[in-house]
């Protein structure tokens, strides 16, 4: 009576793929940008994902955590992330230099329904680190500009120094097929050329919104959701055309560890993108 050990050939969804950090720099004091490439070229090019999906990134000896993919599937090969330093895993990612190896697996979750958004007016409202998942869909819309009607971006941050992708979005302001508005809660530099005030103060700048034909995408700190969604409801945007992403603790990304559960729902499988209508029916969030 002695159990023999077995040889396993099954595919392992928990197995990270080695990936190399190609470029990294600070976006703000505590947020860094990472451009990574899966080292196996075939796998790097066949890594198909949707905007709004996330990947699990691991650092040896520190652990694994979920991060939104910030790049757009319309530019394959490289994956981009913006990561805020907040704990064990993110601290060790921060310490990694260009050329270091990380583990990566994914993509996971349901992203933004870009096909259903075609032909619509798109309004993207981001605050703080909410820019991470929303930059992906913004770049996707711009790369496929003819598929969408109006594209509007409202971007908010506490201070100019905390605005993620500040330069990149300033450059986008030059485009005449994007309505881009930026705001900071307070201007401690005295040189901020744009709006000052919370992100909702940008709404009056958006003229003649065709509510029935608009899809709104929202991501930011918890407090932002409340105020932004109130504005969107006031504008008569249908509840199932307001999309948001939810953050939960995630240990596996594939529906096994249980950590991301909200009521019935596993955020990693059924989310992280939900409509406001879905969220209204989650008892735990009411």
């Amino acid at each position, binding site marked *: *009576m*002695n*159990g*023999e*050990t*077995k040889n*396993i050939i*099954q*595919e*392992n*969804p*928990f*197995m*990270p793929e*080695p990936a190399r950090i190609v470029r990294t720099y600070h976006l703000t004091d505590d947020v860094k940008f990472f451009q990574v490439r899966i080292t196996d070229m075939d796998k790097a090019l066949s890594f198909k994902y949707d905007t709004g999906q996330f990947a699990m990134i*691991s650092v*040896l*000896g*520190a*652990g*694994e955590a979920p991060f939104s993919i910030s790049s757009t599937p319309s530019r394959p090969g490289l994956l981009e992330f913006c990561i*805020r330093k*907040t*704990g064990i895993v*993110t601290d060790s990612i921060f310490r990694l230099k260009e050329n270091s*190896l990380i*583990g990566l697996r994914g993509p996971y979750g349901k992203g933004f329904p870009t096909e259903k958004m075609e032909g619509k007016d798109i309004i993207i409202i981001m605050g703080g680190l909410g820019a991470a998942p929303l930059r992906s869909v913004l770049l996707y819309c711009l790369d496929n500009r003819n598929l969408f009607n109006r594209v509007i971006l409202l971007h908010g941050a506490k201070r100019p120094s905390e605005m993620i992708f500040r330069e990149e979005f300033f450059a986008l302001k030059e485009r005449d097929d994007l309505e881009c508005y930026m705001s900071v809660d307070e201007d401690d530099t005295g040189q901020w050329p744009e709006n000052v005030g919370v992100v909702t103060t940008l709404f009056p700048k958006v003229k003649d919104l065709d509510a029935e034909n608009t899809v709104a995408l929202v991501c930011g700190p918890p407090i932002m959701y409340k105020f932004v969604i109130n504005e969107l409801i006031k504008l008569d945007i249908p509840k199932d055309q307001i999309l948001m992403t939810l*953050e*939960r*603790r995630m*240990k*596996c990304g*594939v*529906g*096994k*560890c*249980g*950590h991301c*559960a909200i*009521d*019935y729902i596993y955020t990693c*499988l059924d989310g992280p993108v939900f409509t406001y209508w879905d969220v209204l029916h989650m*008892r*735990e969030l009411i």
Partner: protein
Amino acid sequence: MRIFKLKKEYLFPFLESISEGADLWAPTKKPEGKHSFQIIKDFSQIDLDYTRTILPPRKIFLPPSFNMFKATEKKYEADFSHVTEKIIFGLHPCDIHAILIMDQFYKHHYNDPYYIEARNNTLILGHSCWPDEHCLCKSAGTDIIEEGYDLFFSELEKEYLVWIGSSKGDDLIRRKPDFFDENITDKDIQKYIEWREEKDKAFSVSIDFKNMPDLMELKYQDPLWEKLGQACLACGSCSNVCPTCNCYNINDKPFLTENASHISRCWDACTLESYSEVAGGENFREARSLRLKLYYTHKLQAYISKYGKPACVGCGRCIETCPVDINIKTVAQSLDNETVDAFWDRFAKEVTK
């Protein structure tokens, strides 16, 4: 389905003949009187006169802690050393139903090879049982088992009726064809039917699972939950003992001597405080009542909506284990007919003596 008769004295010789090259797990009695599934070295350890083990049999597939990977900077090596050839003998119908639930769960959407490989290399040999005052399997519809086992042993007076549930099970009995008697007499059938009817009458508690999804919905904001939350010690025992709980955590520990990391997976419990914490110390379920709601949403509602059956198989482990009497029975009864105050009075009387 094929059924054979096996004389009781042949049981251990039969088990011995089939457990070559495999770990045989069976219920054993611990010194303090409770039972536990253990690897059997000597047949005298096996005690079939048991109702439920402390930990559920899922510990045999996915141990409380095991390594998933051994990793270095360059290479992740999957570690499947927990997967060995196994036979579990003496499983009761409720526990086999729980294994069926796990089979479904671990293949849903993504395959979990750590479970599936362990499961594929394990033979399930069930055994009949007799209910005690905590058994809710009849209510849960798990008192009878028709699939999920390779062999099932129904105990009559001097012999077993052995049900063959799979082709692997059929291969097993072919190893000792002389032990198995095909002639099942009318008298045997009569004895079995009588036993079934007696057992059916032996249940002392019942809960109405079919109303639970509605009641969970309607009473989601009921003050009952606040009171349960005040009583709960957040010890996590109700998850650890439940055969259908599956939550886990990951640890990544560097081993300097090996210049490698061991990435291990260990049981977690949704009733523990750290369970829903996210970056920045924010906790979505700081209140114990919220965590209990999650546990019971899983058992009494969510699973029914996804798979058409409750995620509770009525094994009674949570009833035997919770130090403050919060369990599937008291929660379901409180949701169903008891008023909150009645629960609270009973709690005050029975628990805070």
